């Protein structure tokens, strides 16, 4: 999986490309938690080019959301493909994770 990092007005943006599974989730977790340790409180995860997510990927997203909440920070998830969104729905995560349709909508939430 490729992760493209950007920063827009103090918001850390992670664009995921490929597959977020037990193989790749550790690397992503490390990146996110490094940023949180460095004081980042605003994050957007762009799912546009993510083709696949497993429970290992959901685990990282949940962990990051909880960590940011404790720091009074905020995370937004945007632009999911239908199959990926379905995984969040089956897991019941769509009820408490901020999932929005577009990057614009995610940026406007801050």
């Amino acid at each position, binding site marked *: 999986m490729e992760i493209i990092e950007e920063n827009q007005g103090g918001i850390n943006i992670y664009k995921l490309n490929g*597959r977020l*599974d*037990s*193989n790749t989730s550790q690397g992503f977790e490390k990146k996110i938690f490094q940023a949180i340790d460095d004081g980042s409180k605003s994050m957007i995860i762009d799912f546009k080019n993510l083709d*696949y997510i*497993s*429970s*290992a990927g*959901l*685990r990282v997203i*949940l962990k990051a*959301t*909880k960590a940011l*909440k404790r720091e009074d920070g905020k995370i937004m998830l945007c632009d999911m493909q*239908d*199959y990926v969104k379905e*995984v969040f729905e*089956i*897991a*019941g*995560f769509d*009820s*408490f*994770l901020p999932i929005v349709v577009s990057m614009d909508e995610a940026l406007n939430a801050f």
Partner: protein
Amino acid sequence: MAKRKVSFKLKSNLSELDALCQNLEKFGQSMGLSKKCVFETNLALDELFTNIISYGFDDKNEHTISITIALQNDDLVVHIEDDGIPFNPTNAETPDLECSIEECRIGGLGIHLAKNLMDEVCYQRCKDKNILTLKKNIKETEPQKKQAKS
């Protein structure tokens, strides 16, 4: 005509998830399965395979996990066989899906996904092997055909 059955062996290592995905995608393509069907089957297999690797073996030795994927009429039928300790994932507790973010626990989620994405997940213990059989009706995941113009 393309073969309606494929068998392969994976080592007890998470890096084999890529081989699992490639084998399944290749089979899906040759059978003309929908992208959604391949995605959902891939996820179910991924979760059960990861579970076997994480909890199935009480030694450090390398084990082999055998997988067979077949198309039987409108059913995609997958067998996963391992020589690990007896473990029936279908008995796993369903996570509480109504919980808030603070209470949310991730345990059992993989199995929950697998059960939801497949029509059937059955477990058997046979001759010191764990055998999982998964079934999925391929017609249900196909996009609705466009109606013919009148």
